[in-house]
């Protein structure tokens, strides 16, 4: 799941110059995180209206980043034609897909943060650093590129205080990696020296 965060409403308002707006939510990740489902789209509609914008309509697509045909979207939501701008409440993937087909000004309502997931109803953040050469098994299935702020591959930095990461409010992920590998009986994986990542694997592809 793509993890996103709601932008400040005043920042959204500042970026949208146009008056007539159509709002598009996303029924996948954004809806699961209560950031782009029906409730949030209707709330956005109310707020924009209160701030003097004219919301010509709104919808929640089943998935903003997976659109079979823009014509179908238009047929089902003819009010989009009346809009000068679209406000998309999805991750950057959805915003860019809609931007590529809509031929109108498209604005994001969310900031995209990381690749996470949902496990037993709990949303977990930053599960994958999207490095382009996955070797997560070495770290007991816990990605240090995604979860360690300094992307350390050979063990913790010296900055954790009583298990808390130097950078943010989270625990130092290296303690978790260690505990997990210990429970799996694979501590020898930690003893190996892991070489720097090959960032050319992240290059653009056709």
């Amino acid at each position, binding site marked *: 799941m793509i993890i996103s965060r709601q932008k400040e409403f005043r920042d959204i308002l500042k970026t949208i110059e146009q008056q007539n707006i159509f709002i598009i939510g996303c029924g996948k990740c954004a809806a699961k995180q209560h950031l782009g489902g029906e409730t949030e789209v209707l709330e956005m509609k109310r707020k924009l209206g209160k701030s003097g914008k004219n919301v010509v309509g709104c919808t929640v697509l089943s998935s903003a980043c997976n659109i079979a045909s823009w014509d179908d979207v238009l047929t089902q939501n003819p009010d989009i034609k009346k809009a000068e701008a679209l406000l998309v409440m999805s991750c950057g993937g959805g915003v860019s897909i809609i931007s590529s087909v809509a031929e109108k000004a498209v604005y994001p309502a969310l900031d995209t943060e990381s690749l996470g997931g949902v496990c037993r109803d709990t949303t977990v953040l930053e599960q994958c650093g999207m490095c382009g050469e996955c070797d997560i098994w070495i770290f007991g299935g816990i990605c240090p590129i995604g979860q360690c702020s*300094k992307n350390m591959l050979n063990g913790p930095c010296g900055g954790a205080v009583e298990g808390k990461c*130097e950078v943010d409010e989270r625990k130092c992920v290296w303690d978790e*990696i260690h505990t997990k590998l210990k429970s799996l009986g694979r501590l020898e994986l930690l003893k190996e020296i892991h070489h720097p*990542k090959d960032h050319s694997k992240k290059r653009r592809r056709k």
Partner: protein
Amino acid sequence: MIREKLLSGKFTITAEISPPKGTDISGMMKEAGMIKDAVDAVCVTDNQRAVMRMSPIAACSALSQEGFDTIMHLTCRDRNRLALQSELLGAAGLGIKNVLVMSGDYPTKGDHPGAKPVYDLDSVQLLGMISRLNNGIDLSGNRLEGKTDLFAGAVSNTELTEVALMKLEKKINSGARFIITQAVFDAGKFSEFIDQVHDAGWKKIKIIAGIIPLRSRKTADFLNSNIAGVKVPDDMIRRFASSSDPGALGIEMAADLIRELRGICGGVHIMPIGTHENTRKILEMAGL
């Protein structure tokens, strides 16, 4: 020279100096002047605590022209592998012989919180890369015209979790020849760390104990709540509470600690809060 002295087993003294925030090096030179001939080398920080300053390579070069032996800090925070290597070749070209590598405090701790954190390599990988440069090849396997001869060290806390100890071992196996520790206040606790190192069989590594001379109870409290890996013991804090001259007490405690450490480790590394005005006195009182 620090490398020879440390390797010969003599007790070695280093001291931390920060490059200027600006182009005027006179303050840094004055600071270094206070400890000239009292220390074996000055250790020059690299955007310490993520606060932007003059590059340590330039500062080391200026200091070595004045006759100082230097140790250049190098963090993984601000440079990718290309920049780290060219910096190291440049350092070697300027006659800088010693480097101390570390991950580096995260940018949000400093004065440019929005800076892109690099961390292309970690300290283990950086040490491995220095070993390669010393062998005349770069990280991609290309042969160098002229190799480096860098004496590399790493940093460590003194209370280590199992996983942190494993990382320390990798640092040593990747080419760290000496370790400068986070500030030590309790010689007894510190010797447990030394035992840990000996038990692990890392006989050749030289350990230099970090020393932060306290100035008052306030500085002790500040260190306890703000610096990872630092623990000023309660009895030291109590002594400050009942002292009428905390400045003199801080000097005395630092000197006592250094005297105790003499038999335990390879040297001490003085990191004052503020200036080095008391460093010479502390070392003299410690009998050095």
